[in-house]
């Protein structure tokens, strides 16, 4: 079974509340730069935001030399005890959604916890669970 965070293609207002919730939940810091969600604005034209989220493709787990990225509750999760901070996963992520921060050796990756979802006032975020069958 895979659990993933999804983002609708339209409707993000760019408020970044999801990033705040993410960082407060995972690293207990009020710092949007330590979130596992990317938001990019396309302005002045065509005038929209894109939310960049991990689709749990697992590519990172296959390239990790330490085998530190493990499937946990249906989502690929970085085991910070095993992570060496080499950054191979960051460079090989096809969607560019594993993030580094100068303060942290371990990159930040979405574990599909879903804490951000209820705070998205535009209803863009959702958690999708897919069975094995």
């Amino acid at each position, binding site marked *: 079974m895979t659990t993933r965070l999804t983002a609708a293609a339209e*409707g993000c*207002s*760019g*408020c*970044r*509340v999801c990033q*705040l*919730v993410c960082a*407060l*939940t995972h690293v*207990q*810091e*009020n*710092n*949007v*730069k*330590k979130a596992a969600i990317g938001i*990019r*604005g396309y*302005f*002045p*034209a065509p*005038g*929209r*935001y894109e939310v960049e989220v991990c689709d749990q493709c697992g590519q990172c787990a296959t390239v990790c030399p330490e085998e530190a990225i493990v499937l946990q509750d249906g989502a690929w999760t970085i085991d910070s005890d095993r992570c060496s901070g080499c950054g191979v996963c960051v460079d090989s992520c096809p969607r560019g959604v594993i993030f580094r*921060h*100068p*303060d942290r050796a371990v990159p930040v990756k979405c574990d599909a916890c879903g804490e951000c979802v209820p*705070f998205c*006032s*535009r209803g863009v975020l959702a958690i999708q669970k897919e069975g094995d069958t």
Partner: protein
Amino acid sequence: MSELHGYGGRILRVDLTRGTHRIEPVEPRLAEDYVGGRGFVARVLYDEIPPGADPLGPENKLLMAAGPLSGTFLPCASKAHLGAKSPATGGYGDANVGGHLAMEMKHAGYDLLIIEGQADRLSYLVVDDDQVAIRDAEALRGKGSIATETELKRVLGDDFQIATIGPAGERLVKFACITHDFGRQAGRAGMATVMGAKRLKAIAIRGSRGFPVADPEGVLAAGRAMFETIFGLPGFKDWTPYGTAGVTDWVNKVGAFPTRNFQTGFFEAHAEIGGKALRDRIHILDKGCFGCPIPCGKYSRVIVDGEPVYVEGPEYETVAMIGGDCCLDSIEAVAHVNAVMDDLGLDTISGGNVIAFALECAEKGIITPADVDGRELKFGDLDSVLWLTRRIAAREGIGDLLAEGVREAAAQLGKGSDRFAIHVKGLEVSGYDPRYAAAMALAYMTCDVGAHHNRAWAITHDVAVGRDRVEGKAARVIELQHLRPLFDMLGVCRFPWVEVEFEPSRYAEIYRPVTGQDRSWEELLRCSERVWNLTRMFWMRHLPGFGRQADQAPPRWYQEPATSGPTAGKNLSRETLEALLDDYYRLRGWDANGRPTRDTLKALGLDFTLADLERGVG
């Protein structure tokens, strides 16, 4: 207090003359007495701008401050506060902007930027955490705000937040505005004019380090509760689709919509320019500031000469000042002018007011076709409005005169044009016609940057208790003048309270886990009262003789009743306005000439301003 929580804890001071910078600590006492944001701006401007300083000279300083709640996890923690001695008024000036600037400043570890001196050529400032650089901006000279932001994001990185001026700021138009995030403005009191005078084209900021909060789990819990409350309020669903423009119908219904240069308070075509027309005809995206669940930003697109033109807005003030006051009767026309003004870097409030003034002067024969390239300028004519807009930004011909604002333009034009100059203290009145709304009139007369609505949006009180009633009005205005600017001190937007009826005192709930300090809402309001009195003392310090005379309403309000609509034939008398001022001064602990008394200043801990009382004697 060992470490400040909720603050970056640092001040970045940049000297453009020498090309140097230094980082200073935020003193805990400053944070305690002045909270942040507007409070920091008011205290530092008071301390550091010498009396007599030319607003356009190197002695003036441009400040940008975040508040302790800016950038934290609570609804709408987005606000940055800019301040300087105003080139529009000569007195205290400030302006507020949402978007992502305050969050980014705080993430870079700064609560306050102090920009001093004057660069020897057009420059831009780059702040990347601890790295600070002043770079050449000659290649950006004359570029619009939108193009400048696009270019700086391309050169520096999309994750930089940009505050920029347009050509109007470079040419020192007195109502030039600072633009951020492709359509958010620090609009009023000429903050971009100060940037232009300092030859500072833009400020670019990126921060990664973050700032400490006292209790992260408490912040998460308190923020969660605040968001959940807002999601449950009726206004969350009802107000958000239309944003501020949604109030247009109501303002017309109560006859307070500035129309035809404040000749009246009702615009027949209001439904064509209000929130519903915006939503149905031109809106493409709800664009929010940092942390906002109720985005008022209505990103829109109109087609001009077959090409798409994008604009964030029009928000209510632009609808009122470009729509009603200049009589443009379609949302598309208003959005078009909005886009042009944003890109040129002109405040749409003063811009609309100044253009309406020029149109009335043309109507009354004071400005003749010979003054305007043989054109016949008319209310309701999009070409007239666009032509004047571009002339003003370029300071060409009549535009050079109008670029000084209505007070100065009327002084130079003469021929009784001062009757049509709708301003207080030299700042053009914004989007409410208060000629039959006593509290709103008093709010404009006593606002501490000149005629601006946002310190005390009192029109609803007038409608609720009686339009021309005097009793209780001054008290309500004072209450609002402490409450609303407190949001600017905390560094958050007031719309959750103003627009969707979120209880404001609940901000004290999250103030605690953010700062680690237990302060009551009443205590914070007292800090706001301190700041209000301090800005009053800034005016007295800089304008000898300042007092009651400066708080006078534009004569049109008491001399000419509204000519149409629900308030037709109505206005307030001069005596009513004077009675309002009497009440207001008494309740504030100011003398009959509008000067704070020694006792009032001492009780607020403003002893250091006492010497300015002597200076204020005219």
